[in-house]
């Protein structure tokens, strides 16, 4: 072979290799590589969707949204010096340079900024590349929303845990409490996308290389509460700094009132966070669901249940009340120190005689009382669709494990003192179970058709006796709430006066209405307001009056 031939062959071999490789790149890998070329310069930014509106049961708007702004950076182009500049502008950031170096298209530095805040930011003109100011919808609440703040809850920036759990980005907004949290995925909506083109150095080339994808607002949500009733409850509580009122339909579970005082303003929670946290009245506490109080005399309903269920008590059982009850070497005084005389069960409920129920409890005994409660299988929380509900403390073995139990413990329990601590919502649920003859809907604050029920298998006669007693509380001339009797209201209830270490007694009233075919239960608690008949019961009557008149 002469050299020219070898050179010619080498030339063709070279050409063959080149063309084969070009074929691979430009024809076989065309789609994949052109996609990469596009994503080299095209960056996708999420457009946050506005959260869905929240309305009350009558369609009154409580939560909505308005346009605001956010600030993004493109991490690939942020140098350590830029990071320092950003830090000097916004203070210490939760985002650290490690996050910046990730392959994210952008990192959200600040969100939900008002227009003047953005202007202030732009005036400072940071010479930081790849900072983008963008529209961002912000949650707003109506003036009246604060009366239902514990139902609605509030929103805030995601925490680290939430970012991981829900696959969200730094600076994203998420429901932090109430229905905003429980129904977050529903309210959140579907984010859209916006496109921007950057060159390899991070300079913005075009801010609309392709049309944006519009975001989809979150679903609207209708609450079961009636905001007018919430506002009315607030006016009734004006003389009391702390308390709660909880009412729901025992057939549908619709919560028509969930009022907790003090409340907070959902739009200002984040701004006033510290003052809310240090406030000794704990405005962020949902007293209906999270407030644990000794139930006082309202718990006598449970004591009665236990006595009748265990046949240690019958409606005819009579005890004498000399004004005090002695067990061992200790004496418990009745609230009526001159004594009630001899009473039967119905009268004892109506007049709320402590000595009578001390006797009922002592007759049962501490351990047996716990065993009976175990059999009654009462729920320890309502299961409402708001996160963070507390579990109550009632004499169950599982709940009182660590406590020192004495034969005299039951004497305290029988009148709702000692270890017993319940929430107003739980008290309402027990009232509902009595009113519904053992069956009661689980309370819920969103309107839907999925009603769950709690059933307690206790003989119906027991509920009939309890209802009779509760009716007498209002209708008997000696009843503790008899002075509030109004033939139009048809309320049956039970007062409670709970001694507590924080001052005056807590005032309780729990009731159902109407008497004959009970539909609603209502529990009112007023902290440190004295006797149940003094504070809680009048509020409850006013609320029922307002509610029935508005319903008709």
């Amino acid at each position, binding site marked *: 072979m002469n*050299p*020219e031939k070898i*050179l*010619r062959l*080498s*030339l063709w071999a*070279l*050409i063959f*290799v*080149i*063309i084969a*490789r*070009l*074929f691979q*790149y*430009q*024809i076989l*890998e*065309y789609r*994949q*590589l*052109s996609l*990469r*070329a*596009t994503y*080299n*310069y095209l960056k996708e930014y999420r457009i946050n969707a506005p959260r869905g509106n929240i309305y009350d049961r009558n369609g009154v708007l409580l939560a909505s949204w308005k346009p605001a702004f956010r600030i993004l950076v493109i991490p690939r182009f942020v140098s350590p010096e830029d990071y320092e500049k950003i830090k000097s502008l916004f203070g210490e950031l939760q985002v650290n340079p490690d996050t910046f170096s990730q392959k994210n298209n952008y990192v959200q530095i600040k969100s939900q900024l008002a227009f003047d805040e953005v202007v202030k930011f732009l005036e400072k003109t940071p010479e930081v590349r790849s900072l983008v100011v963008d529209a961002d919808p912000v949650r707003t609440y109506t003036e009246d929303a604060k009366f239902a703040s514990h139902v609605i809850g509030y929103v805030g920036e995601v925490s680290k845990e939430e970012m991981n759990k829900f696959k969200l980005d730094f600076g994203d907004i998420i429901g932090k409490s109430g229905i905003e949290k429980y129904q977050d995925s529903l309210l959140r909506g579907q984010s859209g996308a916006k496109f921007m*083109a*950057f*060159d*390899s*150095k991070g300079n913005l*080339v075009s801010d609309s290389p392709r049309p944006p994808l519009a975001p989809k607002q979150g679903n609207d949500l209708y609450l079961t509460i009636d905001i007018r009733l919430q506002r009315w409850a607030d006016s009734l509580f004006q003389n009391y700094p702390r308390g709660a009122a909880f009412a729901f339909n025992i057939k549908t579970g619709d919560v028509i009132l969930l009022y907790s005082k003090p409340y907070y303003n959902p739009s200002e929670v984040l701004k006033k966070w510290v003052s809310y946290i240090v406030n000794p009245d704990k405005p962020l506490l949902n007293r209906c669901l999270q407030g644990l109080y000794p139930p006082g005399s309202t718990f006598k309903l449970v004591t009665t249940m236990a006595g009748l269920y265990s046949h240690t008590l019958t409606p005819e059982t009579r005890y004498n009340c000399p004004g005090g009850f002695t067990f061992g070497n200790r004496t418990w005084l009745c609230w009526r120190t001159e004594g009630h005389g001899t009473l039967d069960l119905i009268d004892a409920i109506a007049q709320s005689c402590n000595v009578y129920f001390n006797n009922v409890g002592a007759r049962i005994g501490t351990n047996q009382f716990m065993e009976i409660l175990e059999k009654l299988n009462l729920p320890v929380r309502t299961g409402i669709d708001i996160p963070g509900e507390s579990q109550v403390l009632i004499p169950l073995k599982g709940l009182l494990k660590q406590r020192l139990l004495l034969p005299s413990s039951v004497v305290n329990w029988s009148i709702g003192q000692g270890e017993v601590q319940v929430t107003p919502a739980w008290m309402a649920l027990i009232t509902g179970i009595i009113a519904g003859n053992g069956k009661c809907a689980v309370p819920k604050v969103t309107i839907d058709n999925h009603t769950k029920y709690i059933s307690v298998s206790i003989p119906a006669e027991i509920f009939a006796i309890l209802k009779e007693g509760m009716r007498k509380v209002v209708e008997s001339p000696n009843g503790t709430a008899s002075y509030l009797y109004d033939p139009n209201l048809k309320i049956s209830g039970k007062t409670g006066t709970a001694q507590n270490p924080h001052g005056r007694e807590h005032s309780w009233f729990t009731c159902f209405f109407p008497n004959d075919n009970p539909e609603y239960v209502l529990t009112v608690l007023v902290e440190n307001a004295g006797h149940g008949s003094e504070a809680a019961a009048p509020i409850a009557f006013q609320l029922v009056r307002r509610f029935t008149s508005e319903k008709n």
Partner: protein
Amino acid sequence: MKRIKLGLVIPSVLLIAIGLTELFFISKGMFVSQLSKVLIYVLLFLGLYLTIRKSHILNYGFILYYLSIPLLMLTLFLGRGGVNRWLNLGFFKLQPSEIAKIGLIFLLSKIISDDKKPLKNRLIKAGIVTFIPFILVMLQPDLGTALTFLFIAFIINWIGGADPSLIRFFLFVPIAMLASAHPLATVIFFSALAVITFVFKEPLYKKIVTLALLIFTSLITPIVWQKVLKPYQRDRLTAFINPEKSKTTEGWQIYQARIALGSGGISGKGPGKGTQKSLAFLPAAHTDFILSSIGEEFGFTGLLLIITLFIIFMRTVLRLMELKEGHEKLIVSGIFSYFIFHFGVNTLSNLSLLPVVGIPLPFITYGGSHVLVEIAAIFTLLKMEV
């Protein structure tokens, strides 16, 4: 022969035109600068074509070599750190290594074709004159250009009828270097070499010297690789093997070149519409990676045109080579080696098949010196043809 003249001039003019077109879409300033240089060179060599005779080139061409050597030394002295490839002449930045390439072609062909002297002396002299610019350019440092000298020397020696064992040695050196990367490959290579050495009828001393040199090469390569080269230099040379995984700038460049080429597809994105190039993702779009830039905007079709023009040009050079003998044939073969080396290395490095070593794409890459040499080469070929 009119055909040969046309086969040389038409493809090279079109390739220059394609290069200028792409430069026009990269930067108007570069386009104007390159166009004016090309026009000056063409006018200059048209003038030379009419005044200079073939014998002048054959007898005095080698002077370019002796001009370029001191200039190469000057670049080493003038440069302060970094890469010292250019001499600034005010209006023009001259790359003396480019002049040295054509100078070496003229000098080597003169030395090898001088058959009054014994072959051994000629080969030694050829070795020395190749070695001097090789070392000077390695010191710049510019590995790509240094290898160009070796390649040119290899082709001219081979065509000039050098000792086959020398040729074999030249061929086996790169293989020995590559094989030393893995012990098994080394064993296989030397086993094969032993068989080949046994088959060829050669004096024993030649066999021993060749074998000893190859063993030396395969021993020294890993040492140079590990001890002499810095990590970033090693990365540069290996980045092309797996550019996506490479963390170095080189790896990124090669990967972006692939994206540029691939996203061009069959017909390209259109002149001036290459996003890789215009948004600066493709580095050195006007120099090392101009082929990828053209591929992005003019696609597979555009590159096939370049390849076709190149084939026509190279086949014409080969044709001329076949027609020539002696000194002239060696000059033509040297020019052939220049073009195939430049075209091959530049193209293959754009295609992630070779490391990027700064070899320009003939006629097309932005820059004056290599185009000057290429036009000079065509002028020489045209003179040889007469």
